[in-house]
């Protein structure tokens, strides 16, 4: 198996789909000749031509809106938004067009398409280049939301997204693009949408997370097991819509303690839904209040954001300890 970075895995998945399905096209700002500003699509235009790997004008709304038209006609567009911080211009088209065509046409039309949104902090990008935008898109149905955080997940979830019959928002982990590599099975197989992955088993506490910080959460859990004997079960949700309710509930029933960690802002963030559904479906199993650790409800700070805006390792550790040591 080849050892690939997250970036190379995304590239390999897109190349696989472009090669095997003539209806797949990739479009966005600078994705063609230059191979994307991160080089995610390096070499793809050279290989598949400029009619299928398309440099567009600088217009996020236009990119998504035209991709919708392509999807209606039968193509399977992959639309890249250069940074998720610039996706909001296309919000109307993503949430109220792509995610609505099926329902609003009585099931006659649909928009199978992928919107790629490079996301998350950690690259000293300041507010527009470090955003976690997923919570804006989880509010109503019609669009699936995937968050791969390993090379294999990036590969398999991109393939799943392209083949899904509905629009999919692929929330990509920019800080891991080059920082993380692993052996990847290039089998052309999709990863099933809606399945979480259990990174670490444990009986004492369930930690629910997703995105690049899932790696910190797993490391901190290992340290706490070695130092304090706290056995945390760490779950990377990977798929936010739909989410893996079975996996979550079976863990919570076992541990009775829950910590939720994400790097998007706290209030009405994704963790709020998780806390609500857990108290609804597993209230009798809980020993402690559900705790959320998230970014504050403010913009991402350029010079100190990477250190203090995202939940740090220290804060993740403190949150797990608080939950483990909670006294009624």
């Amino acid at each position, binding site marked *: 198996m080849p050892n690939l970075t997250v970036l190379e895995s995304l590239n390999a998945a897109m190349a696989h789909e472009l090669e095997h399905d003539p209806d797949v096209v990739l479009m966005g700002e600078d994705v063609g000749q230059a191979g994307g500003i991160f080089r995610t699509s390096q070499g793809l235009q050279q290989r598949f031509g400029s009619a299928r790997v398309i440099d567009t004008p600088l217009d996020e709304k236009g990119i998504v809106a035209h991709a919708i038209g392509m999807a209606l006609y039968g193509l399977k567009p992959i639309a890249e938004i250069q940074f998720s911080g610039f996706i909001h211009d296309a919000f109307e088209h993503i949430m109220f067009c792509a995610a609505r065509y099926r329902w609003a046409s009585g099931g006659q039309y649909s928009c199978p398409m992928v919107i790629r949104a490079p996301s998350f902090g950690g690259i000293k990008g300041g507010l527009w280049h470090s955003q976690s935008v997923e919570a804006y898109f989880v509010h109503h149905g019609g669009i699936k939301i995937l968050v791969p955080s390993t090379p294999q997940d990036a590969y398999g979830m991109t393939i799943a997204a392209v083949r899904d019959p509905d629009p999919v928002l692929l929330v990509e982990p920019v800080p891991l693009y080059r920082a993380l590599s692993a052996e990847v099975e290039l089998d052309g197989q999709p990863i099933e949408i809606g399945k979480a992955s259990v990174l670490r088993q444990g009986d004492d506490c369930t930690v629910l997370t997703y995105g690049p910080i899932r790696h910190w959460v797993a490391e901190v859990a290992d340290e706490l097991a070695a130092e304090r004997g706290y056995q945390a079960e760490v779950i990377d949700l990977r798929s936010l819509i739909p989410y893996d309710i079975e996996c979550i509930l079976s863990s919570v029933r076992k541990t009775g303690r829950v910590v939720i960690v994400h790097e998007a802002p706290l209030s009405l963030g994704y963790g709020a839904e998780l806390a609500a559904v857990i108290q609804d479906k597993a209230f009798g199993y809980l020993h402690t209040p559900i705790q959320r650790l998230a970014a504050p409800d403010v913009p991402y700070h350029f*010079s100190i954001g990477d250190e203090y805006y995202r939940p740090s390792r220290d804060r993740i550790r403190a949150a797990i300890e608080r939950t483990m040591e909670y006294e009624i």
Partner: protein
Amino acid sequence: MARKRGGPSGTGRKQDKAIVCPLARAEELGIRQVIDQDGKLTGDLPEPDLDRETLIRLYEMMVLVRAIDERGWTLQRSGRVEFWIPHRGLEAVHNAATIAFTMEDWIFMGYRHPGTLLLRGAPLVQLFAQYFGRRDEPFKGRRLPTLMGDRRLNVVPMTTQVGSYIPHACGAAWAAKIKRHDTRFLAMFGDGSSSRGEFHSGMNFAGVFKPPIVFICENNGWAVSTPTDVQTASATFAEKGDAYGVRNLRVDGNDALAVYAVTREARELAPEIGASLIEAVTYRMGFHTSSDNPDLYRSKADVEAWEPWDPLVRLRKYLEHKGFWAEAEEEALWQRCKDEIQAAIEEAEAMPLPEPASMFDDTFAEPTWMLEEQRAALLDDLGGKA
């Protein structure tokens, strides 16, 4: 105007054929000029009425701004500044446009326009404090290096989403008109920005409501790796104004005198006719940003075609012809710029970073209980560290 190959600035994909700088065909392409490549009057636009002191100040600022770019680049490459957006070759447009306005006028600046702040009186150390993300600069270290502004100087910072501020600028100018103020407005943005809906909305409102504003589309040939002919099929960016009933023209963006002349004229006309759209034809000599690699998408020959049209050299030759400048002064000027920059770097680098809790400030005029609680939780977790 005839449609030509290669888009509004002649910039197309990597190609083998000989590349001619569009400024060499200015007349044919409707690009207005005051001086030619050698700083001699072309006879097209009249020579603007600028005194010796102003001309020298303009030239010295263009040199200072170039020196800032050279130093900023090396600071980024050595890891002392996190990020850099180069502005080499773009010194004429923003500096000449800035001096066409009064201090009461408002400017919406872009990220390649440091001279705008300096010409309005910002100290050099303020810029470097911003580049280093320090606490004591107007944005308190919150924004990416080169994204600047300063309310005290009537310079509104750009929104990082390129082009978003075009309607903001238009709305501000409209407000001044409603309030019967004589404030005039300048908004500068790139060719790529003209593809966004905001450009079209801004032009449309500007045509209808006639606010006192000058839009400068700095056509530098590229939006990251995207050449102008992928950005638009229009022969020029200026002519987009025609569709909206906005007065428009093209100017040589490497001719500081021409930029000044047409911008000043547009400013003077603004109370009567409303908006003007000026397409300044220039070229991004540097990388898009410090994260870019232009070798992937443009040829060296393309860049070389623009070298002889360097805006600094052209203005200097003009000054020399007028007897306002001597070659001997050149070295001293550069040395002075470098010394000033070095002093500013030393002072700025020694300044403190923002405190963690400060990221909660300015979210609202008064923080909500929600933010207060989140701030307390952060400080709690940080213990002694905050």
